[in-house]
């Protein structure tokens, strides 16, 4: 990696804390990813991306800003990338996947706040998230109670916070709200960038984001093969990098991996032996570097074949229709697409259960590990009914509620190993 110290200093990062973070991230990545066997060649691209995740990619963002492009940072899949790309802007995910400066975060938030929110605060307070520092606008969204109330406090930590309201019910009223909010967001994007959202640009943006999603669909489908041609950890990494990378380059790289996986599948090759227990992970998002539970699963003799998660298929599953002859019509298509996302903030949320069942079938999963971040009420409350419904259908479920600390690793490992033993029969 080149020396980015000067760039990081100019961005106002705390260099000492940031170095410590990169050190931990680097060794964690090595242990978790590089030690896997039988990785696809194409994953080298992601190894490179991860080695430069705070370097080259940040430089690209800063260069883009110099060239007049605007960077928007977000924490949620409800922020439509299409609108941002339509004004030649860049949308990036912000750091929230690790515990950083928890004591500082807890000065601002109650202790029983979920790890994701606390993580976002920790990164911001400790000045170690270059994506946050590179963002012209941070886009918040009223999803769960934890997030929407936290943004009231987060506002003081960032120069420009824009909060989008979101519906909680899939009704006509809810849809109207989403449409109004996306139009309000579109106006804000136009204002910040000084550019109008034009029909052709929006259409092109829809194609770019759809291509990125389609590449992920292709990857997901290839994982239905037994033996699985790629580890769940590597596939999760692709889902995580989805939020950071240049979209067109990302699409190309995922498709290169898919070409390689296709021939692996044809040859009947995989990363584990045929018949290895297959697990679908469902629940809360896993942002970089939240690899604890997937790593335990794949070191316990199972392979992960899908992620029903925001960092996974819940986030990528639908395409936006590019059909329409006006910006208005295309925004309506965007509303259509995002209104289908089955996040647990919606009540009721029956399509999520249907989607889990479909994923179990499509990817030939033997069981579901339901993952919750502690204090995430929407997913924790939903996990009970989801578990009962799946078990009723003969799909074994293991519920794991945890946070970003490592101290419960061995307890979780015991449960996961027993779950794998249960799947083996």
């Amino acid at each position: 990696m080149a020396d980015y110290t000067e760039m990081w200093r100019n961005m106002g990062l705390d260099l000492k804390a940031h170095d410590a973070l990169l050190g931990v991230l680097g060794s964690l990545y090595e242990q978790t990813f590089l030690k896997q066997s039988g990785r696809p060649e194409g994953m080298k691209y992601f190894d490179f991306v991860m080695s430069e995740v705070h370097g080259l990619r940040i430089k690209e963002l800063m260069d883009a800003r110099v060239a007049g492009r605007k960077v928007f940072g977000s924490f949620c899949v409800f922020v439509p990338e299409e609108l941002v790309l339509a004004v030649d802007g860049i949308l990036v995910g912000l750091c929230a996947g690790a515990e950083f400066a928890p004591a500082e975060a807890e000065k601002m938030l109650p202790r029983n706040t979920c790890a994701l929110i606390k993580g976002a605060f920790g990164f911001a307070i400790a000045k170690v998230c270059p994506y946050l520092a590179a963002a012209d606008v941070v886009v918040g969204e009223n999803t769960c109670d934890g997030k929407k109330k936290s943004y009231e406090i987060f506002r003081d930590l960032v120069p420009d916070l824009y909060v989008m309201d979101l519906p909680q019910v899939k009704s006509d009223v809810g849809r109207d709200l989403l449409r109004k909010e996306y139009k309000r967001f579109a106006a804000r994007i136009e204002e910040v960038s000084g550019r109008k959202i034009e029909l052709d640009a929006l259409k092109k943006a829809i194609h770019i984001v759809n291509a990125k999603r389609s590449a992920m669909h292709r990857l997901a489908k290839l994982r239905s093969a037994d033996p699985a041609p790629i580890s769940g950890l590597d596939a999760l990494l692709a889902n995580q990098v989805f939020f950071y990378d240049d979209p067109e380059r990302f699409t190309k790289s995922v498709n290169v991996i898919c070409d390689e996986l296709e021939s692996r599948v044809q040859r009947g090759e995989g990363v584990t032996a045929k018949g290895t227990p297959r697990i679908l992970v469902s629940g809360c998002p896993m942002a970089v570097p939240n690899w604890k539970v997937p790593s335990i699963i794949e070191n316990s003799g199972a392979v992960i074949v899908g992620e029903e998660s925001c960092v996974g298929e819940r986030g990528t599953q639908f395409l936006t229709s590019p059909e329409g002859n006006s910006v208005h019509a295309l925004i309506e298509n965007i509303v259509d697409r995002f209104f289908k996302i089955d996040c647990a903030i919606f009540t009721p949320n029956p399509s999520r259960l249907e989607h889990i069942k479909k994923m179990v079938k499509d990817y030939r999963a033997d069981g579901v590990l339901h993952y919750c971040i502690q204090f995430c009420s929407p997913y924790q409350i939903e996990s009970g009914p989801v578990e009962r419904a799946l078990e009723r259908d003969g799909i074994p479920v293991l519920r794991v509620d945890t946070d970003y600390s490592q101290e419960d690793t061995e307890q979780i490992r015991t449960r996961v190993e027993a779950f794998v033993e249960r799947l083996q029969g």
Partner: protein
Amino acid sequence: MTIQAGIDIGSRTIKLIMLNDGRISKAVVADTTFDPMAVCRDLLSGLDYQRITATGYGRRLFARAWTCKTVSEIKAVALGARFLMSSCGTVLDVGGQDTKIVTLDAGGKLDKFLMNDRCAAGTGRFLEVMAGALSFTYDQFSAAALSATRSEKLNSMCAVFAESELISLVAQGASREAIALGIHESIAIRTLSLMKGISLADTIMFAGGGALNPCLRRQIEAGLDRKMHVPENPRIVAALGAALAHSSEEERENGYRQFDVVADQIVHVG
């Protein structure tokens, strides 16, 4: 003749079982101490076996040192319970730092299971700490609770908070026996609520060190409104399951017929 060994390295005790052609030829329970591998070496010195399987929290450490296979304590307890009692459909295991409810399907295979969360509230260790806080030995503690005519309700399940609650009860003049009963009741309630999360079979086995506590057993049975089966030495169930874990179905079936452990083979060390 095949000799299979199973070792369960738990948070409080290490249990070793030797299975000689499906018959338990040795059962040992020793304190885990600060050097569990040294205890394992002592327990195994001079013993002959074809295969050893490790379970419990120390299983990975043991497997690295002895180059052997492991099995989770959840599956181990299911296998051990089934070996001891072919009709067993649910196992409640109260160990040193966790409580497990494990169900078996009709064929005796591991099915749904639940475990308490990361902290040891409501487990054996909690009972030990509370006994100590009342200056009871562990056996006295359970006996005192059984002798109580009334109970003092404790609200806290955290060992630290519960101890201060206990101190304030003592300061209010509450009897030790009543406090002891209250502690057992609160653990029974917590265990019962965990058991409500899973559908229980007709035949329930109570295993782990917790099963040696007659007051806890009585409270849980009262809450369930039925009896649980407690094997002769409930602490060795997971070690027994480990000994069986990598045996064939045939070997295990053999075991059901041949099983007749005698009490004097169970030795407590340390």
